[in-house]
């Protein structure tokens, strides 16, 4: 879609002054950036400075990871308590808790799509 409209615009822009062409290209770049920005996760906090932004990010990611493990371990413990399957429930659910913790972290950093939103094809590519 971009190439079709872009080439038409460029053809028209060549006749105009070089300033017009430049603004045309800037507009296009702005639109492209906007489109790409829409794909990024909305969860970003306002990073006022790099140091405090990193601190907030560290708190956020660690709490996501720990919460997954705590919930997994808790479910396993209750599971064992009710069904007398000690220690297998704890083992299995603790492992699942680790997996869920990793999933939480990946979601928090925007590398896996949020459950509510459709998966973006380029979400996993960004390093």
């Amino acid at each position: 879609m971009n190439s079709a409209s872009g080439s038409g615009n460029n053809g028209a822009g060549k006749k105009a002054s070089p300033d017009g062409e430049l603004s045309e290209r800037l507009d296009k770049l702005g639109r492209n950036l906007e489109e790409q920005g829409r794909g990024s996760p909305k969860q970003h906090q306002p990073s006022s400075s790099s140091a405090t932004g990193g601190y907030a990010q560290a708190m956020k990611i660690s709490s996501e990871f720990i919460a997954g493990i705590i919930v997994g371990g808790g479910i396993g413990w209750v599971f064992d308590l009710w069904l007398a399957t000690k220690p297998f429930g704890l083992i299995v659910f603790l492992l699942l808790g680790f997996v869920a913790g990793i999933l939480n972290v990946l979601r928090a950093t925007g590398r896996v799509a949020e459950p509510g939103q459709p998966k973006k094809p380029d979400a996993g590519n960004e390093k």
Partner: protein
Amino acid sequence: MANDPIHQFQINQLLPIDVGGVDFSFTNSSLFMVLTVAATAAFLIFSTSGRGLVPGRWQSVSEMSYEFVASTLRSAAGTEGMRFFPLVFSLFMFVLVANLFGLFPYFFTVTSHIIVTFALALLVISTVIIYGFMRNGVSFLKLFIPSGVPGLLIPLVTLIEIISFLSRPISLSVRLFANMLAGHITLKVFAGFVVSLSAYGAVGVVGAVLPMVMTVAITALEFLVAFLQAYVFTVLTCMYLNDAIHPSH
């Protein structure tokens, strides 16, 4: 005791109330919750009483807080999410004002106790679950079944998604509580260095300048953290509410 950094989190009974063996005492924590709510309500009632077309200083602050929460909610959960605006706005104001109150010397920080933040997170997550089932019925459970997963893996992935969902209130509450607790302890420890260093005569007083500078810097950082954590709490609340409104994949 004066140098005990944990002392500030102690709960004291101000008005012992005992109902059928259950402790319902009015504590310093309750006092500051009441103060938080009273301050928020007083601020909003006072600032919106003028209703000027051109807002004054106070009115523009309350309008800014409204706009801020409303735009956060709208961008995360869409226009439909605006029906939760009262809840989200109350949560934001409560957490923000409680965080800021905690920065006054000798004030109790309500949000530095995990039971308070966990209660708030449970409120959010139970709203999500109840509203999700009310609105979508059983199809709300689709939230736990990601699309495009091979049939063999569905039970495992669903289990992981459920654990991930259940971990949300915990991560939400732990984040707020840990930030406030850690910040206040750090502040207290550095401030304690000032006192204990200055006990060593002139050299100590000169040396005490360093932790003093740190204390000032951390106080500034704590103001930022107080706001940031209230914002993060609000944003995540909005995202979870979005799941309740649009659970489809």
